[in-house]
Each structure stands twice: as structure tokens, then as C-alpha cells.
């Protein structure tokens, strides 16, 4: 089978707080014969912080990435971060719907000697894995059998809303289906598309942290021993503030917050060192228990 090649737009998180996401994503795609080719000279997607200050300028940032993707001959551009995914899709939508946005984008791209905005298909790894790789193929590739606990699949707000292309807007289930195909039991998680607080954990801290508290509490209540995410910001928020939440509420949360690619990558036999599991902050003990080192894998990933 020849490897399918997708353009790959990492976005800033993959080189920062979400580095474990990129490590596990590349490993998993490699295991499934999918190849990602990184976009040359990419820049910020213009997400939340920029978008709320100057929407038009933020659009130009995303438009530049899409123009380079087109110039590089990519017909599909995969981006793992939900915020990047939404920004890229949003500029495409807005340019189509509002002539003044289209005009501004056209002028700016022309000034940078870049091709006009085009139909590069923006895709998220969750949807790529679900549609381009069949669940049966994933089942057939499972080499490690899960002995950990049940996992709550948390999709966050930006992946499915508003466009609903990566999964169902109200009740996304693709991560659940993928993890189940990889042999991992999941729980029914009513808060799967609720807010993680986003950048509120930095700006209006108590509000942001409370939203994470609600997510953690409900996941535990439903019997989950870990939460799987598709977004680097969700993962970071849920992972980073558990100590603070423990101190404030007296409730003993210590849940691993994993990228779905880490769990799938492990089940499909990815090298432990290449899954970024050592980068987690919370739930360290559980992670050690669930992802034990195997004979021959001498080097600790912790």
C-alpha cells in the first residue's frame, strides 16, 4: 500500500505545550502508513487572542498558511489543534460569505506574491483517522491489549462547532469509536463538547479553573479513570490545574489527560519513547501502570 500524503500544519502548540500530541500523532500516522509533510514557512493561525482583537488581520494569518499549502501542491491540510482547525476553516467560510473579507484576503495575498485563497481541504486527524482509515483496519492493527481503565472522550468546543465537519455537532462519537476499535473502553460523557475554559485559565483564572473542575468531576462520576482529548489547549487546561483544584475543593483528582493519539499509538504498538507519555503532569502513577515498559524497551520514557 502506498502511503497517503497530507500537508501538515502543526501550529504553535505542537512545538510547545502540545508537543506530546505531535510526537504521538506522527508515530500513529506512521503506523497506519499515512504520511504528513510539514508546511514550509508556516505562521500563527491567528487564533482566539488575535481573532478577538482584529478579526480581519487574524484571517490574513490563516489565509497565508492556506495559500502556502496550495502553492506547495497540497490538496488537504491536516492540523491537530482545534483552534488552528477552526481558524483555517473560518477564513475559508468568511471569504466565501462576505465579499469584503474575500477582497481584503485577495489583496493581501497578492501583495505577498502568494496565490489566491483556494479550496485546500482543511482536516483534523480525528476525522482523517475515522474516514480515511477504516475502523476494521485499526482493529486489525492492534498489537497491545488495553488493561487500563475506562476513558472519557472529551471533544471540546471548537472541533465540531460551528461547522460540524469533523464530527456530529451535538453528539460527536468518532473518538469513542476509534478508541473502542483500539480496544479501549469509553464512558458516556455528557460534557464532551463543553468548554474547557480556553484562555480563561490565563485571563479570568477562577472561571476557567471552575470549568475544568466540572469536566473532571463529571468524568470521575461516570467512572472514567482518564480523559482523552483532541485539542492541545483542552489537554493543557485539564492537565495543568489539577493540583490547584485539589487544593481548592479538597477533592482528590489525579487523572491522566491524554491525547487520543497517545492511546491509539500505544495500542497499535508505537514505541513508548515516541508517544510523549512522559510529558504528562497529572495522573503520573496511572500512566506508569497503564503503559508499562516492556522488556527491550530499556530506556525509561518517564
Amino acid at each position: 500500500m502506498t502511503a497517503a500524503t497530507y500537508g501538515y500544519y502543526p501550529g504553535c502548540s505542537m512545538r510547545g505545550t502540545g508537543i506530546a500530541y505531535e510526537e504521538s500523532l506522527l508515530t500513529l500516522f506512521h503506523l497506519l502508513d499515512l504520511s504528513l509533510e510539514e508546511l514550509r514557512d508556516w505562521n500563527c493561525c491567528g487564533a482566539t487572542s488575535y481573532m478577538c482583537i482584529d478579526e480581519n488581520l487574524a484571517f490574513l494569518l490563516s489565509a497565508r498558511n492556506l495559500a502556502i499549502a496550495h502553492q506547495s501542491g497540497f490538496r488537504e491540510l491536516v492540523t491537530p489543534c482545534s483552534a488552528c482547525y477552526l481558524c483555517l476553516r473560518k477564513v475559508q467560510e468568511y471569504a466565501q460569505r462576505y465579499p469584503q473579507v474575500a477582497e481584503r484576503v485577495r489583496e493581501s495575498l497578492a501583495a505577498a506574491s502568494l496565490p489566491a485563497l483556494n479550496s485546500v481541504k482543511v482536516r483534523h486527524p480525528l476525522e482523517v483517522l475515522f474516514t480515511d482509515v477504516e475502523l476494521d483496519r485499526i482493529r486489525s492493527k492492534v498489537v497491545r491489549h488495553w488493561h487500563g481503565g475506562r476513558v472519557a472522550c472529551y471533544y471540546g468546543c471548537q472541533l465540531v462547532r460551528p461547522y460540524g465537519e469533523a464530527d456530529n455537532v451535538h453528539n460527536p462519537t468518532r473518538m469513542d469509536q476509534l478508541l473502542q476499535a483500539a480496544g479501549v473502553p469509553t464512558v458516556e460523557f455528557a460534557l464532551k463538547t463543553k468548554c474547557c475554559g480556553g484562555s480563561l485559565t490565563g485571563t479570568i483564572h477562577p472561571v476557567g479553573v471552575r470549568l475544568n473542575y466540572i469536566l473532571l468531576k463529571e468524568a470521575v462520576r461516570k467512572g472514567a479513570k482518564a480523559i482523552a482529548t483532541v485539542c492541545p489547549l483542552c489537554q493543557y487546561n485539564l492537565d495543568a490545574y489539577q493540583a490547584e483544584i485539589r487544593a481548592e475543593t479538597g477533592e482528590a483528582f489525579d487523572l491522566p489527560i491524554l491525547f487520543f493519539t497517545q492511546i491509539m499509538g500505544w495500542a497499535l504498538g508505537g514505541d513508548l519513547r515516541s508517544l510523549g507519555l512522559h510529558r504528562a503532569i497529572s495522573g503520573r502513577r496511572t500512566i506508569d501502570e497503564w503503559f508499562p515498559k516492556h522488556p527491550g524497551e530499556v530506556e525509561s520514557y518517564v
Partner: protein
Amino acid sequence: MSEAGGAVRIGVYICHCGANIAATVDVKSLAASAATMPNVVVWREYKYLCSDSGQDLIRQDIPNQRLNRIVVASCSPHLHEQTFRAAVAAAGLNPFYLQMVNIREHISWVHENRMEATSKAQDLLRAAVRRVARHEALERSRIPIHPDVLVVGGGIAGIHAALTLANAGKHVYLVERQPTIGGHMAQFDKTFPTLDCAACILTPKMSAVKAHQKITLWTYSEVVQVDGYVGSYQVTVKRRTRYVREDLCTGCLECLEACLYQEGRFTDEFNAGLASRKPIYIPFPQAVPQVPVIDPEACIQFKSGKCKKTCIDACGDRHAISFQLEEKTEEIQVGSIIVATGFQVFDARRAPYYGYGVYPDVYTALEVERLVNASGPTAGEVVLRDGRIPKTVGIVHCVGSRDENTNRWCSRVCCMYSLKLAHLIKERTGAEVFNFYIDIRTPGKGFEEFYQKLLNEKVHFIRGRVAEVTDWALDPTEEGKLILRVEDTLAGLVRRIPVDMVVLSVGLEPRSDAQDVCRMFNMTCSGEGFFTERHPKLAPVNTFADGVFLAGCCQGPKDIPDTVAQAGAAAAEALVLIDSGSIETEPNTAYTDEDVCSGCKTCIPLCPYHAITFLEQEKKARINQATCKGCGTCVAACPSGSIRQHLFEDEQIFEEIEGILTYA
């Protein structure tokens, strides 16, 4: 009739319509210009031409001035064409020698400049004068009306329409898809706002239908084909078999007792899936007809052929049950049709944020109707699926109504049935009941008073659209409850209200096969699928198909009183047709010149009224003059020009065009 043969002598009559026309069009100079137009021998202007004295001018001029063509320049022909045709005919001239020019809607009401308006009026008048010279005498034909009526759908609308017609002595075929008549109303316990028992008022009418000499009742049956036209419809009805012969069954129901299944095992549709039935069943105790149905999908005999057939033994020498019975097709002839196919309730799964199908204690209102019904699955007890009696109940209004994401229209009945259910639930359980509403709409007789009564009963009303129904609990008081998250727009707060039971007040929508039904009866329907009436105010039960009338929710959501009123109106319209014995048709129909027709069949699929048949022997198209509505589609499409249309002949239209384009 008169003197079409001799020289054309045209009379032109220009109406002031008070100031409506005269204020913008210079009627005097318009009349003067008429004098210069070809063949015009009389020209007059008058204040109100439609008045008796106005019409008299025309009536007198025709014999006195030997006129043989008349042009009236006034309002839209929609308003007064019939008036002036009648005036022309009264003077002994064929009424189709009249041509009207609309100088009001097309000119005075849409123009401001008097000179331009007058000049345009002259152009249109000249066009009419040139056209009318080419007119020919035409005859109207009459179609006899078959006195029998088909009523499609046996809900309260169909029942009421059928009884009204039958009581007037007309023969009615009532066709119902389900095994029993009664429709949705039979599923309800009480009716708002009077809280009278739905069964008590409905079942006598159901029995009356069954007993009526003039009604042929076909349940478990469907109309599958409709041919013909007003006065003479040929209808094909498919009658599914119940495997129990209606003529032999006495309704003793011993077969139900005898069935090998001791308990029901299959989804009971009548009870909205809240109960189970046996393979042989009647939908509910007062079902009409009182004849059981065998569901072949469930029956052991049909599935394996190895049943002891205890039902047949129980039936004994009545021999009503037979597994060999087959579906039948009936062909009937009727003159008019009343469509009363009803509605379906919104599928609550389409609003996934309300948790229907996810949380067992989320119910639709129709399910709760069955719960509160004494003949329902719980004998009228309001209990949750696990047997608990709810202490708190939340009723969510406008589920699948007034919503951009699902259905945009207001379903009209939900506010009132929500209030009714709130009352009944509180009465039966003493529960605390919350209504979550956008607006409370109580515009019927006694409705607002009922709302006041509910307020006095201490039912809570929270104004806000519920965001979601969820089971995530923030504190111990919420554990095990369903939580409604809602913005209380009166208090200005986002609230979480924990309840034991959620009732979704689902809206009304067209049946999923409404488009097919619409095509079958040649009606039109709105984008959402409700059948459209001919005029929203003045022809509310007529459709664009002559002789096809509407009643009930298939036309749009409505409550029982409105449905019954509309059903009565539909029956009255059908009676008008029947008692007049025949109707006159307009002669502006299309016809083929069969010498020129090449038999290409281009026209046949284009006709919206199925009026064109292909004569296989002669290889020609022929247009049924009774069905043709004169839309002209086939005329324009015919590649050989062999289809022509009365009153729209080529030479008439060319004269009209030249009249407009002539530089005066």
C-alpha cells in the same frame, strides 16, 4: 349567437374607478386616442363601469351600435372579467369577444407621472384593440359531478367531514391507513381547555362512522393512485389484510386471549412504544372497527409456520381468521376528495441536546398523553420507567418549533397541551411542575383563562429556552436527577433545575410522505410539506386541484376545534359541488392539431395536470379538455407548433405585441 362574420366593430370602455385610475391616467385623452385605433366605433369613459349603469352602457351599445367586440380598460380581470363577460353575454354577444386591459394595478397604482401613465395606457389599450379583433366565439362546457366523496384519513378531521357528508345523504368512502380510525385524538386523555375526556367525545363519532349506511369505511388501507379530474376521479385503494375477516369477526376478542404469547412482546405503536402488544391485537379498546389485526412480522405462524394456531381454535366456527387472506385492490369513482391525512410529531432525537433516547426519564408529550390516559400502559398513573412517581417535572416547550435548527413554525397546540399536561401531572402526582417557555400563546376561546388557572395551581413558569437536559450533577442535591440548564430571562440568571422527569413538548410537522401524497392528489405544498390552500383567507379548504379539499393538520398545525371547523367547511365545499350537479369549465384550454402532431411526446411529462394522453394507435397527443387548466406549458414546448390554445392563439398574441410596439 352574433355577427362575428361581418366587419369588426369594437367598443372601448374606460373606467375611472373613482379616482383610483382617473387621478393618474388622463381618461379623457385615453378615450380620444381610442377613436384613432382600428375598427373602434364606440369609445366611452365612465366613473364606475362595474356598476349597473356602467354595464348598461355596454349592454345597450352592442345592439344599438352593432358592436361585435368589446374592450374594457379598468381593473384586473381577476376582479371583474366575469362581470363584463356576463354583461356582454346579456346583450347576446359571445362573452369571449371581450378583452380587458388592466390600467389600475398595472398602471395607475404603480406609476406617478400622469403623462407616462397615460401613454402606457394607450399602448396597452391599442394592444387589446388589435387582439380582440382576432377573438373567436368559444363555448364553455359542463362536467357532471359524481356524487360520491372520498375522505382520506380517519382522524377527527376525516371523521367529522365524512359524517357531515353522510348525514347530508352523500355516499362517502373513508380510507384510513391504520387498523382503526380515531387518529391522534384517540391517543389523548383530556382535551384543552375544558378538560373533557377525549375518548368520551370522540368514540361516539367513531361508532357513528361504522354504523352509518352512507359511509364505506376502509381501515388498514391506503390510496395508491388517483386519476381523472373534478367530478370524475378514479381512485385506487390498496387494502392490506388483517388476516381477520371484517365481515365474519364479531369482535369478541377471544383470539387475543388465546394467542400463544401470554404477554405482549412487540412495540405497541398506539401507546407510543410505552407498552407491548401481541402479534394479534386491537390498537385500543374502543377501536373502530372492533376487528383484530395479525402482525405477520411478529406472528409465529408467519415466521415459522409452526404455530398451534390457538387463535383459529378460539374463533371456532365463525372462521374469521385465515392466514391465507391477501391484500386487495379496490377501484372507486368519486366526484370530490377531502384530504385529511394529519401530522406526525417532531422526532425529539433531532434535538439531541434534550437527551431523548439517552436518558430514560425524558419523555415526549405524546408519550405522557398515554401515561395520563386511563386506558394507557399505566392505567393513568404518572410513573417513570422504573416505577418511581416523579416529585419534580420539567416541561420543555417549543421542541421542534420556532427553532432555526429544526422547524421554524409555531405548532400552535403545544402551549395549551403543555398546560394541560402540567395540570394532569400535578393532579395525579402532586409533583412540582416547571414549564420552560419562550412565549405562552393562548389565543383560543377559554385558553387564557386556563393559563390563569394553572398559575393559580402554583405551576412554575420559567421564561427561557432550555439549553440542555443533562445528568451531570454539580452537588449532591442533583445526584440522580435530570438537570435542565436554562437562562431565566425574567430573572436574568442562568439556572440549573434538577427534576425527576422531563417532558418535551414536541411540535407538529407534515407526515414524512406528505410530498408523495401532495403529488398523488395534484395539490401543492409549502417547502416544509404542509398542503397549501387555494387562498389563505378566502379559500382556506380549497386546493389548486379542483374538487380536492383540505381538512385538519395536513394543511398546518391546528387544535381540535379548528380542525373540526375546517372539516365541516371542506364537507360544505364538497356539497356545493355535488348539489350543483355539474361545473362549468373555462374554454381557454390547449388543443392539438392532430394532423401536425408528430407524436414526439415532449408535452406529456410537462403537463402538471396529467391532461395529455398519447394515442398509441394514431401516435398523436390528445389533451383532455376537462383536465386542462390552460397553463400553456405544452403550447410553448411543442416543437412542431401543433399545440394551440384557445384565447392564446398565435395570431392573437402577435396582434397584441404589434399593438404595443406600434409607434403612435
